[in-house]
């Protein structure tokens, strides 16, 4: 089930809100768990059993790990649990990728090939595997005690707002909220959560879907028929689509969780106003960056390595893995490496030297680098990405495909929204709508009214998406 569907907005959400708010605090977690299971099972009915089984094993391994003081057993249990989770992720997501690549080498060598596995990728596996890992690592490192009940752990893993597309919530960030959030849950949280959800929904439905349509049309066209103008429009449209789609989803997740008393970590912070790629990664998919830093980069040695070469190697490796996490395809690895190399380059140049360049120039250049990177992220294979970028820089601006008025207006609005927080009035509005813990009634009334309008517009748009009647209704 996706948030931007009639099933969720009109049926699932109102019923859940009704049941949840009427129930006593003792039953609220159970209600969330049942609805989360239903939410997942609705879209992936077979894989709910995979989650149930792995969480059952993880929970008991980690409980055992916590209870024992024998370091060898602790390490063994930790490695066993880690292997199960990464093994499942590898099996479902990466197995065929590695088989395909191995087959290419074997074919070149004239040896037989391995058959591909008939597997379907379970929805959200990349997210909940990473969350399972944070649970075992945080308990192993004794950052936080494990949860007492299996059903509480289940809720942490399959809590529906963040189950499908994050944010990736590290265990210690949410552990105390599972049972301890009720006393702090105020009406402001419910209202601000609802407002945030509506903003996210609007980002997805009213912006990302519109610009995405144009991006899809251009990226699916024959590249040879595109002009430079078309290629740039496609790349920029996709740049807007991926930001408003993903950050919109994160807003919906954070807003929904807040309505139920949970405070999830922020996942985006105006990434396109970054002055460098290093800063971009502090603003884009923050929870993935944070996970990679804490559970991969630091264990690899982080900044505290003996040589710069090792540091740069670590950086590039982490970004290559980040790319691979997004999907089992070379284009994602290339995209990750591309960003990793820019990070290394920025380290080589040094922060002080970069600071001397005017801020607006740095923002523009960083945005340019990010846009080029998205081309690799969007295409299906590397050679197409290179051909697309060649087209962008062929300076053939003579012709272009006609653009729909709706796309032009929404695209300009998306650009303005992306850079709006460079200006203080917009920063203030964002602070109120995203980060405030409470607002005055008049402000709340205003924002809630705006959110409600957005909700209605989004439902209207979703309801109409498949309604395209023939005019021959009388005949």
């Amino acid at each position, binding site marked *: 089930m996706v948030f931007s569907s009639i099933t969720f907005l009109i049926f699932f959400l109102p019923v859940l809100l009704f049941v949840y708010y009427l129930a006593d605090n003792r039953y609220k977690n159970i209600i969330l768990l049942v609805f989360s299971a239903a939410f997942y099972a609705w879209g992936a009915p077979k894989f709910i059993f995979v989650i149930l089984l792995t969480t059952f094993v993880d929970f008991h391994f980690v409980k055992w790990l916590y209870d024992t003081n024998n370091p060898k057993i602790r390490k063994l249990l930790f490695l066993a649990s880690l292997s199960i989770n990464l093994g499942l992720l590898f099996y479902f997501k990466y197995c065929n990728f590695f088989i395909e690549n191995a087959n290419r080498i074997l074919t070149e060598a004239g040896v037989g090939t391995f058959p591909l596995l008939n597997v379907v990728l379970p929805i959200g596996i990349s997210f909940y595997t990473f969350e399972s890992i944070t649970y075992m690592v945080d308990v192993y490192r004794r950052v936080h005690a494990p949860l007492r009940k299996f059903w509480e752990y289940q809720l942490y893993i399959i809590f529906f707002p963040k189950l499908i597309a994050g944010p990736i919530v590290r265990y210690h960030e949410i552990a105390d909220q599972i049972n301890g959030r009720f006393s702090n849950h105020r009406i402001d949280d419910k209202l601000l959560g609802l407002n945030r959800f509506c903003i996210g929904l609007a980002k997805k439905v009213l912006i990302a879907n519109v610009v995405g349509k144009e991006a899809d049309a251009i990226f699916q066209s024959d590249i040879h028929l595109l002009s430079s103008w078309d290629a740039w429009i496609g790349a920029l449209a996709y740049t807007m689509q991926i930001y408003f789609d993903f950050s919109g989803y994160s807003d919906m997740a954070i807003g929904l969780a807040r309505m139920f008393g949970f405070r999830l970590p922020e996942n985006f912070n105006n990434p396109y106003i970054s002055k460098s790629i290093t800063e971009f990664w502090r603003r884009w998919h923050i929870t993935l960056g944070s996970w990679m830093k804490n559970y991969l980069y630091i264990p690899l040695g982080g900044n505290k390595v003996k040589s710069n070469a090792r540091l740069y190697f670590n950086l590039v490796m982490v970004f290559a893995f980040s790319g691979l996490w997004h999907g089992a395809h070379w284009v994602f690895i290339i995209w990750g490496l591309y960003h990793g190399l820019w990070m290394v380059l920025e380290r080589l140049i040094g922060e002080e030297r970069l600071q001397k360049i005017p801020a607006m120039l740095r923002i523009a250049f960083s945005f340019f680098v990010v846009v080029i990177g998205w081309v690799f992220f969007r295409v299906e294979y590397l050679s197409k990405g290179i051909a697309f970028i060649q087209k962008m820089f062929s300076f053939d601006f003579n012709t272009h495909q006609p653009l729909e008025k709706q796309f032009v207006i929404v695209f300009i609005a998306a650009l303005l929204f992306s850079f709006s927080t460079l200006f203080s009035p917009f920063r203030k509005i964002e602070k109120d709508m995203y980060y405030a813990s409470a607002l005055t009634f008049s402000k709340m009334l205003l924002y809630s009214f705006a959110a409600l309008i957005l909700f209605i517009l989004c439902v*209207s748009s979703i309801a*109409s998406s498949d309604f395209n009647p023939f005019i021959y209704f009388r005949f």
Partner: protein
Amino acid sequence: MNKKQILFFFIVLLIGFPLLNFFVPIIKSAGLNGSFSIAPDATFSWNKWFEGTFQDEKNKYWRDNFGFRSDFIRLNNQIQYTLFGNTNAKDVVAGKEECFYEKNYIDSYLGKNCLPDSVIDFETRRIKKVQDYFLNQGKSFVYVIATGKAWVLPEFIPVEMDTIKQISSYEKFLRKFDEYGVKYIDFNGYFARHKKEFNYPLVTKHGTHWSSYGAAIAMDSTIKYLNSQYGLKINPVNVGCNPSDVYNEHDREVTMAFNLIFPLKTKEKTCHPDLSYDSCADCVKYRAIISADSYFWEPYGLRIFQNTLGPFEFWYYNYESWDNNNEKKPFEKPKLLNSMNQTDIFIMMASEMHIECVTGKLIELVDAEQ
């Protein structure tokens, strides 16, 4: 409850209202116009559940049936039209000055979907065969070529579609009709050439077929043609006019399918036909069959033939049969053959775009009789 709690309660109530109205229809929304299907409810089985088909079907059912769906769609359509000029109807193209076309009418006019010569020849032979069958039995026959909107209103075709015109199927058919001696009335050409001589639109900017007025004029002319060509005595119709600033439903059939909150208004002065019939002692109520495409629905609705002919049948694309009392009759071969034997007049009618589309089943019937 404090003010914020009331606000939250109010918003949640509003969000839940479509769900409530789905289960208990408190407020009935006006229906939507156009031809579309509504997904049926899903039936549950564990097999379907694990395959995900139950969920897919239920998603579609809820999407098509949730409370206030039609109001939400109208709101979206209104925004799309007002802000972006987008129309949410299948294959409709917005032309200049708020004139809307179905795309295939423009394609037909420009000759983009022109049939090969061999097909034109084959179809004309079949039409001629039908004509000969009826004429040989002493019955009256005429092929009525109805209008194509782009032919009558080419000046409003949108710039991006207004490419070089090539020869169309219609033009080829006219040549072949003349060559083979098919008896026809070409309202498409006539309306296109003479539209300025009429005070009211023969095809409206918001319609797709001929206007009510245009349909009345065409039927009046058809009756006159039959009377003069075959010496029949059909009571003629007097076509009067009630001028109006508002289109009737037929004349805005395209824009009705836009499903807007505020229906589009027109600056075009239109005519709601005012039909009358003189008393005529020696007129004859002939039996007739009209084998036609959708262009006959408006004359049928205006009841012109009901008032001037005897019992008649309207064979819609030769797969449905309607009698003169608005009743749908079974489209069965023995009954059809019987009707063909009894009829006095046989009219084939199709728009310039569909000339070949009304021969299919008809030729089987003619062959069966010969």
